[in-house]
């Protein structure tokens, strides 16, 4: 049993003089969901490429399950399941054939293959599509099949490289539901990259990368506590009393489109404001800071698809 399933120290990946990943270090705890966040071109896919043994590195150390990914490549590969940004299914084969082929690559005994195939399809609710050609599936279904395939050899780590790119909101929700369920039931360490801050909220731990460097490394809750504040918005006929109260506490409320707005440090102040001025309120909104606010605070720019 290892505490850190993945350890990355001073990872550098250069293309000529350009460093796509520039001295990145982080740990991923065993049996956790880890999110690697950053805008397009930040170095996420390059990092996942090195971690998943597809790419070499220019410098640094990467260990998975205590093994060096370059020196013990095949042993590391047995422990990994990878879902790339693009579909890597063989479209001319059926869903089951794709899974069987995958299992043969991982040296799973022939007698074991049917059970593993069906179990993996059941995990993502795709049993009834098992005999369909992969090319006939929708984008969301392909994603689910790829997740099933990546899990079918029972890896210790599942890499998901932007797994919901190009999917509609409902399919995105299904994919995340599937990932959460799998992590909870199987205890697989999930390493996901995404540029959707909203989606990264499911992670136990987050590393934010920008221009090849780590700019934050923490839990989503702690990052939000450190870098964001709760927003209070109140609509009332006469907001003067509430405004004065907020100013007394050192805040800077503003009136905008008939709403009084203020960034507040925590829930206690909101409760107190409601206790004092609740009777005059016509409407009230309280919104927590998001990881997107964290990203803006850390990099001075918004993350975009």
């Amino acid at each position, binding site marked *: 049993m290892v505490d850190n399933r993945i350890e990355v120290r001073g990872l550098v990946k250069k293309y000529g003089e350009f460093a796509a990943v520039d001295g990145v270090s982080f740990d991923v705890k065993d049996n956790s969901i880890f999110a690697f966040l950053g805008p397009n071109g930040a170095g996420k896919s390059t990092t996942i490429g090195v971690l998943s043994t*597809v790419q070499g590195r220019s410098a640094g150390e990467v260990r998975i399950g205590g093994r060096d990914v370059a020196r013990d490549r095949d042993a590391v590969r047995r422990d990994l399941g990878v879902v790339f940004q*693009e*579909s*890597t299914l*063989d479209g001319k084969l059926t869903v089951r054939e794709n899974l069987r082929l995958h299992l043969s*690559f991982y040296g799973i005994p*022939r007698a074991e293959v049917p059970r593993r195939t069906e179990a993996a399809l059941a995990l993502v609710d795709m049993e009834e599509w098992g005999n369909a050609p992969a090319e006939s599936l929708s984008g969301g279904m392909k*994603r689910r099949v790829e997740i099933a395939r990546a899990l079918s050899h029972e890896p210790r780590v599942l890499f998901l490289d932007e797994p919901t*790119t*190009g999917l509609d909101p409902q399919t995105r929700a299904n994919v995340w539901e599937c990932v959460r369920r799998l992590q909870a039931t199987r205890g697989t360490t999930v390493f996901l990259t995404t540029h959707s801050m909203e989606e990264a909220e499911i992670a136990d731990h987050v590393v934010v990368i920008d221009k090849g460097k780590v700019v934050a490394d923490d839990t989503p809750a702690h990052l939000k506590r450190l870098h964001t504040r709760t927003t209070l918005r109140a609509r009332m006929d006469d907001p003067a009393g509430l405004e004065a109260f907020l100013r007394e506490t050192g805040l800077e409320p503003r009136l905008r489109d008939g709403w009084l707005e203020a960034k507040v440090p925590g829930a206690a102040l909101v409760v107190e404001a409601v206790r004092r001025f609740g009777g005059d309120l016509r409407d009230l909104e309280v919104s927590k800071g998001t990881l997107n606010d964290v990203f803006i605070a850390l990099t001075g720019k918004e993350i975009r698809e």
Partner: protein
Amino acid sequence: MNSPVMALLARNLLKFGRDRMRLFMTLFMSGLFLFAFSFVTRGAGPLVGTPGGYLVSGVAVMTVFQTALNSSMSMLEDLSGGFLKEILVAPVPRWQVAAGQILSSMAISALQGAVVLAMGFFVGLRIDLLHGLLAFLVLLGMGASFGAIGLYLATVAKESANFQLLVVLVSLPLTFLSGAYIPAGMMPRFLLPVVWLNPLTWATASFRYVALGLEHASSSDLLRAGISFPVGGAVVGPLAGMGIVLALGGAFLLLSVERFSRADFSRIKIFKRHHR
């Protein structure tokens, strides 16, 4: 044992069986060649064996040659379609990936060569069971060697368009300087060194030797028919020729594995997007 090599072979055979257009084109092109060249050989008269047998063996060799080269292109399709990444993250040594690919080219091309032999009965080929089996073995050997050459070209080309160009550049001169359609004895002397360096020459010669049952033919007949060749002061016969073809195949297998192992797949471009 669920070996990756055999799994890759099974996968490629399955895909070949499902590609009806490819099957049809193979049969159609072979039939067309047999039909067109039957007039040429009829005019030229028999060199060894029957004119039909001489012709069919040439077309069968060319079919195996072209099919084995083109089958190797499936690696490029896997590269552009994304499937190669699935193989590359798996704990499968690169030599096994190359071996699976070459075995697939061998099996598919030898099967097509066998179909040509079967069609050959309609244009005068006569072959007994033993010679038929031996001929199939030679087709398998040629398929493996040409598959290895094709795989090497695929690792050099890296893109389907470049590969097609390379195949044309390689296959056209090799075809016409091999004796498959035009007997080597009819070629100008200055081209003979090129003929001797051409693996297709030896493949054609050894296949004709087996398929036409020439084990009792005299040395002078074999020389005259372009089955044996005078190289320097020695005569290189069809069996040594087959050895040359297999040795070349082995060399290209090693070259392919070496290129495959060194390849930086970090810049693989996948053209089919995930969503539809």
